[in-house]
């Protein structure tokens, strides 16, 4: 087997499994869990463009989820615009907001950036909770917006059962992963990494670090908002505490950090590890041991930060390579 085939094959297998999964998983509950898993993998991969490659710690991405969800929902409820179009309007709007946040904050470092993003996201949430109408647009304050399930079908981004949602989010995830892969190999990717690791050296090598980060932020907030529309169409009910809560922002960051930020596999791996913990502990211990999954998150997060600060992706990749090496002979081991 040639090395490139050895590297490509597991990906193909993974893709086939992912696409075939709904055939095996018929339980609506499990499918629901899988959809949320992919949704979080998607969100975290989008977050990773800034939080991972650009080396800052954004803790307010829920704001972009919310902007995406509200934009497409308002456009479709009030103006009959297809959510597919609304999705991209939301993306652009969110991108704009992302750049506005980024302009002043990328000059700051570390803690200040994290605090500023939290405050921004919480500020937007509080605003949405307090207004019923934004000009002609109905926001409905804390009560949120309900999407009546009237017209189903692909055009309306609405389906009676869960499989279509599964495939949509799977395709979205695959696309965002491919994009991340392409960016990580591009000039922008190199510039983000350089600017994140050693800003002074990066600048001396011709990199306008703030510009690179802004570009990443624009993309990240755009992509995150798309997931907001998906969220709205999937749950058919959004309100500020659901699509804009600080918990979402933190969960995204946790998944990235535990999986391994700045790597392509990290966010997916993190979602694979953490989402089931949170879903199953909610299903089985929700009544008896509330918050158990959050304790587990906290403990895992601390252990990972202390012993594998670059995330679990690193040791697991090493293990995987060793296993592959043994399986197909050392020559074919992907290096």
């Amino acid at each position, binding site marked *: 087997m040639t090395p490139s085939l050895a590297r490509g094959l597991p990906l193909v297998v993974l893709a086939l499994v992912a696409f075939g999964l709904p055939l095996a998983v018929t339980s609506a509950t499990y499918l629901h869990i899988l959809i949320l898993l992919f949704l979080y993998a998607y969100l975290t991969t989008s977050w990773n463009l800034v939080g991972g490659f650009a080396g800052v710690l954004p803790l307010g991405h829920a704001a972009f989820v919310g902007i995406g969800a509200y934009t497409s929902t308002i456009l479709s409820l009030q103006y009959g615009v297809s959510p597919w179009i609304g999705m991209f309007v939301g993306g652009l709007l969110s991108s704009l907001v992302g750049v506005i946040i980024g302009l002043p904050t990328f000059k700051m470092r570390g803690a200040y950036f994290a605090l500023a993003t939290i405050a921004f996201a919480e500020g937007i949430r509080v605003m949405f909770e307090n207004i019923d109408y934004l000009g002609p647009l109905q926001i409905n304050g804390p009560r949120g917006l309900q999407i009546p399930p009237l017209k189903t079908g692909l055009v309306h981004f609405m389906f009676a059962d869960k499989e279509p949602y599964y495939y949509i989010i799977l395709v979205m995830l695959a696309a965002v992963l491919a994009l991340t892969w392409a960016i990580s190999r*591009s000039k922008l990717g190199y510039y983000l*990494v350089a600017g994140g690791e050693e800003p*002074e*050296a990066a*600048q001396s*090598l011709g990199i306008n670090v703030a510009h690179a980060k802004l570009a990443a932020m624009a993309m990240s907030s755009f992509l995150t908002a798309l997931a907001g529309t998906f969220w709205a169409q999937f749950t058919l009910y959004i309100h500020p505490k659901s699509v804009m809560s600080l918990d979402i922002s933190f969960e995204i960051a946790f998944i990235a950090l535990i999986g391994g930020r700045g790597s392509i596999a990290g966010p997916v791996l993190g979602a694979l590890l953490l989402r089931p913990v949170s879903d199953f502990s909610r299903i089985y211990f929700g009544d008896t041991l509330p918050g158990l999954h959050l304790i587990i998150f906290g403990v895992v997060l601390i252990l990972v930060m202390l012993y594998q600060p*670059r995330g679990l992706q690193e040791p697991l990749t090493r293990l995987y390579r060793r296993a592959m090496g043994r399986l197909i002979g050392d020559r074919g081991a992907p290096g």
Partner: protein
Amino acid sequence: MKVLEIKKVRRYFGGIKAVENFSLDVAEGAIVGLIGPNGAGKSTLFNCVAGVFPPTSGEIVFLGERTAGLKPWDLCRRGLARTFQIVKPFAARSVLYNVMVGAFAGTARRSEAERRALEVLQRLRMEHLSHARAGNLTIADRKRLEIARALATRPKLLLLDEVMAGLRPTEVDEMVAIIKGLRDSGMTIFVIEHIMRAIMALSDRIAVLQFGSKIAEGTPQEIARDERVIKAYLGEDYGAA
């Protein structure tokens, strides 16, 4: 032609006069040395030239253009590259990755950046380290990586800040040969160095800095004979030798 003109540059940090009224011209194709005791203001001067911070007063002209208001990345794109005295590698990445970051300054294509990076690595005789993690390099190799990254941007003027500190004598000789080779390919070089043997062998001209002020400028022979320089910096031994 003058590649770099430094005119009456001052740089103060609060009360500290790090650079005081410094003027110097660097001619195209020259190797100009800058020496002086610790804390004399050498790195500060480099930082002003490279656009890290503006001079408190005075003017710097690079390739006929005044650099006021230009940021480090602007200057890099105009053909100025520098190394850092305290090396700043992208430690978690490979050597090749590090150098490619520099190479992207001249191209947006990955394959071209990789080609340019490998070319530079070959030139510095470190292609065997291409896939080593930058953070794991020895200090000598880190210094070389610092140069490689700067070279990959294909500069016209290269500022080297103590790239030989901490190297063994054979490594110093190797570095001197490399730097001379760079000049022979048309690059202009402005170099800070404490190792006298190296700076004397390399430089066409040398400027001496003490307490922020230039106390002498001339050919290596003139500098070696200059009374004030011997007193301030070289020490009596050097003058006698």
